[in-house]
């Protein structure tokens, strides 16, 4: 990074180790948090589809509010992790999360400005689409009709998790913004 002095005000201090670490942590937080949530979602609490339900809100939220920290390659890796962790046929999690990211990213201008309730509603639509896509892919790759109930269940859990997760992620997003604002 160049430390050229700005047109006015004090010159930007050189990027120290701590500041660089701070920035790297901030950039990595969304992906690491989503991955950690997925790993914890694998604990056997008797809720099938918890991992997918935990991944969807994270990808949706960050693709809207901080797309730089949740770019498509990161979403791909998260999807791969999801597929490997959940022992589902490979590719289902990857494709679902990438499409969710794509939709949220395209509509982020609108979605970032709407109220929380409308955002939740949009998430419901996206999660329903993800559930249907997951079901169809499962049918194609497993070559048998899966029962629709687990998909519905996953949708319900994702929609139920969204407000809580969005609350936490909004707090994190605000804190990061403040930190970025404070940094000269």
């Amino acid at each position, binding site marked *: 990074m160049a430390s050229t002095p700005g047109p006015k005000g004090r010159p930007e201090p050189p990027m120290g180790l701590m500041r660089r670490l701070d920035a790297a942590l901030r950039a990595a937080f969304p992906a690491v948090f989503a991955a950690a949530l997925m790993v914890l979602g*694998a604990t*056997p609490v008797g809720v*099938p589809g918890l991992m997918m339900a935990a991944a969807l809100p994270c990808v949706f939220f960050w693709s809207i509010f901080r797309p730089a920290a949740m770019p*498509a390659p990161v*979403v791909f890796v998260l999807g791969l992790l999801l597929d490997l962790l959940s*022992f589902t046929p490979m590719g289902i999690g*990857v494709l679902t999360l990438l499409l969710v990211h794509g939709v949220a990213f395209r509509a982020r201008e609108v979605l970032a400005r709407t109220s929380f309730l409308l955002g939740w509603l949009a998430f419901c639509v996206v999660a329903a689409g993800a559930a249907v896509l997951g079901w169809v892919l499962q049918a194609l790759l497993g070559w048998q009709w899966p029962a629709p109930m687990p*998909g519905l269940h996953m949708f319900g859990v994702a929609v139920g998790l969204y407000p809580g997760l969005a609350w936490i992620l909004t707090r994190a997003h605000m804190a990061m913004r403040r930190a970025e604002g404070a940094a000269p």
Partner: protein
Amino acid sequence: MIRLSIPLRQALARLSLPVLIAVAFGTMLLGKADALLVERARMALADALSPVWTAAQQPVTAVRRAIAEGEALMKLRAENARLVEENERLHRWQAAALALEAENTLLRRQLAWIPDPAPQFRTARVVADAGGTYARAVLLAAGPQHNIRKGQIALDERGFAGRVTEVGARSARVLLATDINSRVPVTLEGSRARAIMVGNNQARPRLQHWPEGSLPREGERVVTSAEAGAFPAGLPVGVVRWTESGAAEVELFAQLDRLDVLRLFDFGLAGILPPEAVARPEPRGRR
């Protein structure tokens, strides 16, 4: 860091999603084409994460135990009455069992019966759900020097739970009897008729392919069958339940929704394992 011009960077950012979606389809093909590679990757990941899950398991178990404790306290009186009644019933059964055991020993002595070897087993803790949305499987944490093999049979404290399908260095995956890909040859204990228990991702697997004329009776006990050499005969599985729509289902003895610990039995059966699992020359010490 490589410096790119802004238009090039924007073009790359716009291209990355379609390219990655294409790669996702490639992943699907790879998963279909090279199942062994995917399995290795999965078990390597599971091995790496199994300590994390073991640690995360503690609070989950604590909460679950607290809830169970609370429920037990709520219905202590009713539970006590039920237990007294059950104890009486079991006492009668114990008397019958002792008489039968004595008779059995006597008969065996007369027949010069060679007893089955006592099966080896080891216990492993369930640390993660390894099923995703459309499958029913659990992941077990095992020590670094475990001798868990594919095809071993998992029982909880009440009955048959599933079979080991993937084995890693310190973890193993058990496909539960309720999974949609699970097919278990069973015997109906009353009529000695054979049938197949087919998982459907619901709590109760279905019964199929019983011989004509020997309809499963409601409440009949279902045990495993030695047919196909995948299971030993006579492991307790569940009881027959008819649904209102007229399908025969098995209510499992094992409580698959609250598995804590599974016992893995090595009966030394190679059964219907995939070829690559059987071809491996593994000396199996049988005593």
